[in-house]
């Protein structure tokens, strides 16, 4: 089985793009990134850009953080849905955590988090 090369994804985040995959066999959008299509099993997946915009489907505000993130509390983490078919859990930034709402429009806002990786975070499209 082919190994999954995540470099395109992380390079995309660094330049402000959220990449997903599309299966070249069945046409399905795939996310999180996979080595094979979870729908049809085909090993041929192509990277493509998403709009990077979506909405908060659910969220929590972390007060008791895992190791390495204690200094960031309280911070908001959301389940963000991009383009209706890309779902990911991401830090929500550039807003008061208490102002986060279900349905809030957000856009990709890559940010270096505690461990140093440039992470796909999201910020409100309009300041609440």
């Amino acid at each position, binding site marked *: 089985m082919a190994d999954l090369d995540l470099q395109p994804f992380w390079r995309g985040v660094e330049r402000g793009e959220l990449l997903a995959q599309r299966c070249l066999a069945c046409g399905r959008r795939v996310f*999180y990134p996979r080595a094979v299509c979870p729908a049809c099993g085909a090993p041929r997946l192509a990277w493509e850009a998403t709009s990077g915009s979506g909405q908060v489907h*659910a969220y*929590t505000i972390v*007060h*008791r953080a895992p190791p390495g993130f204690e200094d960031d509390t309280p911070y908001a*983490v959301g389940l963000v849905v991009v383009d209706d078919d890309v779902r990911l*859990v991401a830090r929500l930034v550039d807003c008061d955590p208490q102002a986060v709402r*279900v349905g809030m429009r957000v856009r990709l806002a890559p940010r270096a988090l505690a461990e140093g990786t440039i992470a796909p975070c999201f910020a409100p499209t309009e300041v609440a």
Partner: protein
Amino acid sequence: MIARRHMHEYGTTPEQLAEVAVASRRWAALNERALRREPLTIEGVLASPMIVDPLHRHDCCLVTDGAGAIVVCSEPRASGCAHPPVWVLAHATAHEHHAIASMPNLTTSTAAARSGREALAMAGIHIEEIDVVELYDSFTITVLMTLEALGLCAPGEGGAFVEGGRIAPGGDLALNTNGGGLSYCHPGMYGIYLLTEAVRQLRGEAGPAQVPNARLGLAHGTGGVLSTAATVVLGAADG
């Protein structure tokens, strides 16, 4: 996030989530082995430190040491044992998503619904016939989700269902009668306690927490990120 989405879709309140923790504490008060037995009120839950909003500290299970064991044997072998056996009437397992972002519907545990449905079908009984229910309570929202998935109440109605002490001692549903992971103990793998408590109840060995005439018990474990489920239906020896 599941609790937040449940609130968003169904109007579930922090007070309703707290009801679960309060009921568990009242059962724990009847269990001399339980770690947390002091009284707890809804206000006390809401005043406890926020861990991951909307879940307060008392919405989250304990962190303890502990261990348990069960002996499973054939029917002929059981007849010579020191204690009356408890029969395994049915069992089922199911799993759903891998990551929480892949959960098809945050407020519906498809895995729990499936394992519960299949176990009850194997036992040939309806959920209403169960006398005592032991289900995994990592967080208070886990209990609401599982009550709904098992059909003890309608989807979205878990919050209203537990109001008014309904799952506390003396309520309509004997639930987590040892105090659960919220107040009894929680050594990481809590599932064994679901079975041991169901067995105690069906043997009539539950002391002050004994549910009168408990003949049928259901134990339901949840794992992963609300993604794996196992249901066991147990029956008392002469029932």
